[in-house]
Structures are given as C-alpha cells and as structure tokens.
C-alpha cells in the first residue's frame, strides 16, 4: 500500500477534511478533539512493533508515561523560555526512547520473544505504575516538580514553541490542532516510507519467520530493537502531547487498563497496515468516548467484547477487513475476477 494513485487521492481528500474541520467548529471543540489525535502516535508505534514486526508489546504506555512525566519534570523545573519548551519535548521523547533501547536490548539480545515479551513488557509497565503511585509523599520531588503519587502530576506548562521575539504557548485550541495534525501527517508519511523500505521488509520478515530472516544473514536482534525503539519514541510523543494538552498525567496512564487499550485500538482497526491502525484508533477511541457517557466500566466491557469479536471474526482487524472487502467489490465492478 502507499504506492498507487488511488491511495494518494484518498490521502489528499482525508487531509483536506482534517484541515477544513476547524473552520466549521468552535475552538473549544477543536481543542477537545485534539485528545483523539494525541493517542494515534502511540498506536502507530504499536502497529510498527506488533503489526509489522510481530512482537506484541504491552510497553507502549510505559514509554508514554516516562515521556509524559519527563516533560512535566523538565518544564516545571526549567520553564519554557529560550526554546526550552520545545527542547523538553525532544528530551522527554529521547528519555523514553533510551529507556526502550535499554529494555529492548535485554529483551531482544536475550532472545525473549512471543508471549514472554508480552509478559515482561507488561510487568515493566505495571511496576512503573506502582512506583509512581507511591510517590504521594512530599519527599518525592524532583527539583520543584512534585510527583504526587496517585493524584497525578500537574501544573506543567502547555506545549510552548519558540517564536520571533518570544514564544507561543499552545493551549487546546485551533493552533494546537494544526500543529498536532501536522505532526501526524509527518509521522504517518515517515512511517509509510519506513515500512515500504528495506527495513520495513525485514520487520515483516521477522514477524513471518524470524529463523528464516536470520538465516538470510540479517542480525534480527538489531531490527527488532530498531522497530521497538521507534515505536517507543512515538509512544513518548503521545505521552508528551497528552501531558502538555491536559497539563496533567497520572500513574493510571500506565495501569493495566491503559496498557490494554492501545492493543485493542490496533487489533480492532487492523495491525498489519498503519492506515488501518490510524483509522481504527480514531474510530475506536471516539466510540469509547461516546460510550463513556454511560459509564466507563460499561465502555471497557464493550471494548473487551469488541476485541473478542475482532479476534474471532475479523482477525486482520475491522478496518483492514473492510478495506479488503471494498477492494474486491471495486475489482468486481471493474470487471476483474
């Protein structure tokens, strides 16, 4: 995918809608809806690690949390002047990526894969959650940033960009919307190029048959680690965007429920293609949000059922299966077989 004219026309149409959307909505709604876009990076990262590379990782929310807290600690301590706001974003993502590199090194160079990879990454995530949850006491401060345990850390500034002769703070509004949308387009296109590259080919080969990939002379551990770190950096980007958007992050962002949600978005949408993942994530997130009006426990149960339904009936993912169906219908219409 990502090579034909049909693909690119669809891409342009969707992008045009996304760009035009704020013209027809008020700033408050637009600002709220950035929430959905914030998560897509983490989902795209998981699509790369799991859908393409075949490693089911529950670690995305850990990297999300590490980056979110890092952003908070950095900006609360050093502020956002002189471009430090932007620098904090980059450092926070780098910390998450570094954490993933260390963890991934032990996992992949220790040849841990399959179900054990899932177990270890989930354990790490939950250990982080536990750790952050017990930091309620006043002794748990880093500089002037209080970690604040289960109540969550707050008071960090919003995303702040250096600008000519000053800086602009992006509160949830149309400006931030365009920035996040722009990031999403860049990340999406970057991933598109990546998965269509030699590196992307090898990731898929790892998913299909790691032994064969190694016996073609590839040091598969490096490719697994590479995919894992890129995916983690994207989760970190989500973490920073989420934290600066709501000026808030809590340990429950790394809870077992939170860790399961990206898996559900990606599985339900379709993990074998980043487009299906992107659409699926936005659809499932919106549905989840709509259901939460009736109670969040209820929404979670529906999500669980959705996952079971998907795994049983449309294992490639609902969006991916819909795409395949659409493709074969078009084929028939065009007189194909």
């Amino acid at each position, binding site marked *: 995918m990502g090579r034909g004219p049909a693909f690119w026309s669809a891409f342009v149409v969707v992008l045009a809608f996304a760009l035009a959307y704020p013209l027809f909505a008020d700033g408050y709604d637009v600002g709220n809806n950035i929430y959905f876009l914030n998560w897509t990076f983490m989902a795209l990262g998981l699509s790369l690690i799991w859908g393409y590379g075949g490693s089911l990782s529950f670690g995305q929310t850990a990297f999300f949390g590490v980056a979110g807290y890092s952003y908070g600690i950095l900006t609360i301590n050093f502020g956002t002047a002189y471009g430090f706001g932007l620098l904090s974003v980059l450092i926070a993502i780098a910390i998450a990526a570094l954490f993933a590199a260390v963890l991934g090194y032990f996992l992949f160079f220790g040849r841990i894969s399959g179900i054990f990879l899932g177990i270890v990454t989930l354990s790490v995530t939950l250990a982080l959650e536990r750790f952050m949850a017990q930091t309620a006491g006043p002794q748990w401060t880093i500089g002037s940033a209080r970690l604040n345990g289960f109540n969550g850390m707050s008071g960090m500034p919003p995303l702040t960009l250096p600008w000519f002769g000053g800086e602009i703070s992006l509160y949830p509004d149309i400006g931030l919307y365009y920035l996040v949308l722009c990031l999403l387009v860049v990340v999406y296109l970057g991933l598109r190029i990546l998965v269509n590259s030699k590196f992307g080919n090898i990731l*898929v080969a790892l998913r*299909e048959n790691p032994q064969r990939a*190694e*016996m*073609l002379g590839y040091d598969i551990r490096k490719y697994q680690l590479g995919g894992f770190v890129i995916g983690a950096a994207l989760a970190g980007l989500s973490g920073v965007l989420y934290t600066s958007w709501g000026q808030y992050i809590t340990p429950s962002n790394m809870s077992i429920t939170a860790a399961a949600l990206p898996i559900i978005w990606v599985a339900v949408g379709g993990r074998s293609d980043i487009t299906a993942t992107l659409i699926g994530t936005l659809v499932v997130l919106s549905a989840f949000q709509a259901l939460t009006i009736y109670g969040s426990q209820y929404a979670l149960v529906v999500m669980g059922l959705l996952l079971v339904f998907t795994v049983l009936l449309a294992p490639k993912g609902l969006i991916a299966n819909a795409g395949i169906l659409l493709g074969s219908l078009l084929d028939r219409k065009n007189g194909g077989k």
Partner: protein
Amino acid sequence: MALLQTHNLNKHFGGLHVTADVSFSLEPGKIHCLIGPNGAGKSTFFRLLLGEHQPSSGTIVFDGQDITRLKSFQRINRGMSVKFQVPGIFGALSAQQNLQIALQHRLDSLDLNAEVERLLDFLQLREVADQQAGNLSHGLKQWLEIGMAISLKPKLLLLDEPTAGMSPEETFMTGEIVKQLNAQGMTVLAVEHDMAFVRQVADRVSVLHFGRIFAEGTIDEIVADERVAAIYLGQSHD
C-alpha cells in the same frame, strides 16, 4: 583445502548423544549427500553447522576460519545458506516478496528486480509470483526456499531434504537445479532420503547412523556396502 571441516563434533541432548564424534570434510565444488535413517542426527548436524545449536564439544572450520562460536547470521554472511527440512518461508508475503527480502541483503534495488525475475524463471515460479507463499504447493514452497537460499550466492548451500513431498518429476527437476547451481561453482551438502535423487546428483555420499559417520564413498560404494543396507533393513524391522 576443504571448504568445510568438523573435528570431533559432539552434541548431547540430555542423555541423548545425537552427534557423536563427527569429523567430516567437504571438498569445494562437490555435491555431497548425507543419508541415514530417521533420527540419525542429520538435521541436528545441520543446526550445528548453522549455529542454531552449540556443540557440546568439537570445532567447525568453514572456508579456512573457525566458526564454532559465531552467531548464525555471521556464518550466513561468510557464505553459507540453507533450505530447512520444514519449509521456512514468509507465508503471508508473495513469492516475489520472499525473493526480494532474500536478495536485498546483497543487491540494491536496480539489480534486485532483474535478479528476482531471473530466479522466478529459473525456479519456474513465474506463474505464482504474486501468490501468497503460504498457499503454494509443498513442492513450490521448497523451490521458493531454495530460491531464497541461493539469493545469497553462497559458497556452501545446505539442503535438508529438498525433495520431500515431491513427485518423481519434481524430484528430478530439483536434481537438475542443484546440478546447475553446482556447475556455477556452488558447493552443495544435501540431506536426502530419495536414492534416485542421490544417484542423480551426488559426487560423494556419507551415511550418518546414531549420530556417527558410518560410511563414506561414491553412491555405488555405499549401495554395495552390506553394513549400510543392514541399518536401513534393521530400521524397517523395528
């Protein structure tokens, strides 16, 4: 000088002595077949050569270098390549993509497409090029994997039962493929049960029995060897 040499290679799985003091030598440019009853340790010997198992003792020298401690991919990059007993392909990808992934290790995109085309023709995979590899017939999977293995232009090609599940015609064609590859300079070590295939291709034959090299010679010498006949007969009795 031998292309591949093992010295007193041993492998134990618990109490099971699966590779026993194997000192084996493979001349460059030859097609060498390894035969032996089921469970004789042929695939295990391959895995030791490829670094999937570490030997309990002994050394492996390939192309003049001791590779006993090298990782699998490092051995591959020194000029080994393998087709496994159970077809090892990328099932969800097309036959063509399978070849691309194998070839991209060595070639950049321009030469790559030409080489994919050449291999599709050479292995008679042209008609199924766009089909999912996992859906191919057993015989075509074997050829596809041979195609992936030779994509690396190896000095030594290891084939574990390349004709298993093939019709006599397909088996014959596989033999011709192997002979062509050998004529281009590839040394081949093949595990095979099919004696017609062994006769068709082998310059030399070794018999593995209970993990030991039991006999070695030309196909005629091996067939004439009564002790070899006895182990095959003995097997059909138990």
